[in-house]
């Protein structure tokens, strides 16, 4: 019974995470994107906390805390600041339109479930479902990264991807080093954010101006 409940709740959170990822895909305004990401982080935090509860693995609360505080509050805030400072225009130029992106997202989710369903069931169903969702979140995060043109939104994509990882890690019952990993990742993300801030990287992710190409891709004469 309890197992059943546990299953449903974690299922709920994981599914919610995927849903939020779709919302990320859908956004076309920078601030909105950041807010949605904050939501993403919060959902993750809850799901991790729930895992900590049902697996009674207290150290997972740390991870949940990091997720909530760092990704839910600090980083979105920092990014807000950056967007203001660097006058990144608020409109997100996407490579392909929202619609196709959403379709691609659907396809990816389908793909990940198909792949995961091949996993024999004796790896316990909870893990199986969670992994399916985690994989979708990861893929959707990558999709965000490759379909958005400017740095901030790509960072957001990367972070959502990484949320997927944490989801997977927590779903893996009794996996060691989860906390360390989440910490390491937080540092990584901090690096990226700082990098954006320091190097004034606006659209460097995807510069289209040829002169910049010549300057930075070195190998031309």
């Amino acid at each position, binding site marked *: 019974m309890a197992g059943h409940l546990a299953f449903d709740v974690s299922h709920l959170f994981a599914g919610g995470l995927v849903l939020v990822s779709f919302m990320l895909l859908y956004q076309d305004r920078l601030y909105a994107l950041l807010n949605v990401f904050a939501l993403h982080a919060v959902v993750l935090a809850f799901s991790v906390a729930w895992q900590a509860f049902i697996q009674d693995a207290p150290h997972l609360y740390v991870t949940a805390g990091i997720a909530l505080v760092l990704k839910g509050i600090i980083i979105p805030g920092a990014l807000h600041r950056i967007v203001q400072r660097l006058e990144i225009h608020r409109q997100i130029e996407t490579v392909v339109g929202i619609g196709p992106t959403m379709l691609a997202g659907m396809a990816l989710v389908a*793909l990940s479930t198909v792949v995961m369903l091949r996993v024999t069931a004796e790896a316990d169903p909870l893990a199986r479902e969670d992994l399916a969702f985690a994989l979708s979140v990861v893929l959707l995060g990558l999709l965000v990264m*490759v379909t958005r043109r400017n740095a901030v939104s790509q960072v957001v994509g990367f972070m959502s991807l990484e949320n997927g990882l944490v989801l997977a890690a927590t779903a893996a019952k009794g996996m060691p080093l989860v906390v360390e990993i989440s910490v390491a990742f937080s540092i990584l993300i901090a690096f990226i954010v700082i990098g954006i801030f320091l190097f004034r990287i606006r659209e460097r992710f995807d510069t289209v101006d040829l002169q910049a190409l010549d300057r930075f*891709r070195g190998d031309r004469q």
Partner: protein
Amino acid sequence: MSTAFALIFAAVLLASAVGVVGTAHRRLATSIVYGVCFAASVGLLGLALKDLVSGVGPNDAVVLPLGLPWIGAHFRIDALSAAFLTIVNLGAASASLYGLGYGQHETAPARVLPFFPAFLAAMNLVILADDAFTFLLSWESMSLASWALVMAHHAIPENRRAGFIYLLMASFGTLALLLGFGLLAGANGHYAFSAIRAAPVAPGAAAMVLVLVLIGAGSKAGLVPLHVWLPLAHPAAPSHVSALMSGVMTKVAVYGFIRVVFDLIGAPEWWWSVVILALGGITAVMGILYAMFQTDLKRVLAYSTVENIGVIFVGLGLSLAFGASGMPAAAALAMTAALFHVLNHSLFKSLLFFGAGAVLRATGLRDLEKLGGLIHRMPRTAVVFLIGSVAISALPPLNGFVSEWLTFQAILLSPSLPQWALKIMVPAVGALLALAAALAAACFVRAFGVSFLGRARSPAAAAANETDKFSIAAMFILAGLCLAAGVFPWVVIDSLAPVVDRLVGAHMPIQSAIPWLSIVPISESRSSYNGLLVFVFIALSMSIAVYSIHRLASRASRRGPAWDGGFPDASPATQYTAGSFAEPIRRVFGTTLFRASEHVEIPPPGSLAPAHFRADLHDLAFEMLYAPLAGAVGFIADRANRFQYLTIRQYLTLVFGALVALLLVLAIWT
């Protein structure tokens, strides 16, 4: 036993190569290096001759713990390798002797001295090798050393280009050979030749091996259309190295071909010979036509090498055909002819390149159009170059004729072949050979006539001086050998007998037993030739003529200006040039084979502008095969190069794509 000694000599060569790196005393170093090379080559020559004459022990093999670990480096001298060792070291010794003199004038000795001995050693090791790895290692080292020698005068852009094309083609050939040996050795990597012999490959694979070896060895030997590098690279090197590359290295390539096709590959199929014969015939004619149209003396020689390679491969092809149809005697005849020509060509081609080197040293010129009248300035060089030219034009009583004659005798046996294709093809190939021989005569009348005869076409040629004594000595030795091999061919044929026996299981009748020392391929009634008698007759009747004329007729003679149809002392520019000499043949053969075209501009009457004549030739092999290839690579490179300038997001897209693709693979195929 002698294998071990041979290896020691090779080691000596390598040691001298290493020892000379970065030395200060140039003259001294030159003398020492070439001295050592000379000594070592003579030693190896002695060994090889001993083995050739007294026969080789069956298990005269050496295995060193080098090369592929679990196989080791196998070395072995059998009859075949003994024969080729003789040829190689004959050339090597003479080149070293020549180098003793010629090398002293080298402008960049530091770029020649270390690589020359290494080159010699590598060639010897190729022939000594008895497993695939050692063979290919030495083979490619040979290319590498010669490449370094080609690059010796790297300041000249053409030389750099030549070096590049050479090394690329060489490596292409080596990879082809590598694939071939991969097939022969099988999946478990039995690379030792003994193991390869023990496990013959399937017929289909064998055919594939043949093709690969034709590409590999053929590209090194210079079979058309794989010859493009040869006329670029051979002339670029210092002349004694050119002599080695043209006279000896191509023979090493022939050795590789024989080793695989007649020794390792197992029973041949008759249709292989069709391929080889066709290639050989085409190569012979195309090679000599190319040579006919060159104005660079060394390039003329290089192209004529292509021709001679063609002749050799025709011999090999015939031998294969006869062997496959169970006619050992005929096969032996053809093989003997081929090997004999291998020896001959190594002799006179080295000789001619030495001559060209002497001319180059004396005048600083390789361009025929600027030479002329050297017979007065360099009498000795002229004599030996003349002998070389007569020999390479396959004229009696010199050696070139004998091998050509033997080849024709083999061709005359073709009607008894069972296959109709060959019956009809071989005579045609024979016609091609005859054509090649006649053109060779024309080509060398041109080469000798324009450079040594007539009047000097440039001050440099007018001021030329005879070359040094070492060079002269080397050239006279080779010339003497040419004459000897032409007058006493039976010696060569008999000493080749064991080799031929080993390869085709039969040999020509022992010639030394035949009265009057004439040579008889099959039977007295069928055909025979006696170089000695012909030589004696010519000498005799000539002296009779001289004697009687000088006794009976007037001996008076007077010098005067040339008659020249009544135009007194025209300038040297009015002489026939190399270009004009080739013109009739260019008109006959060039128009189709080379898309030859002539452009004449004659200024209108009264204008003082000079008239212009230009003859254009196209190297179709290059334009149809290599240029498109290079173009394709360049095109793809340009396309691929875009990937250097993508944005990070696009690179991420690549990663993402790869991931999705792999997941799809999982989703679908598992």
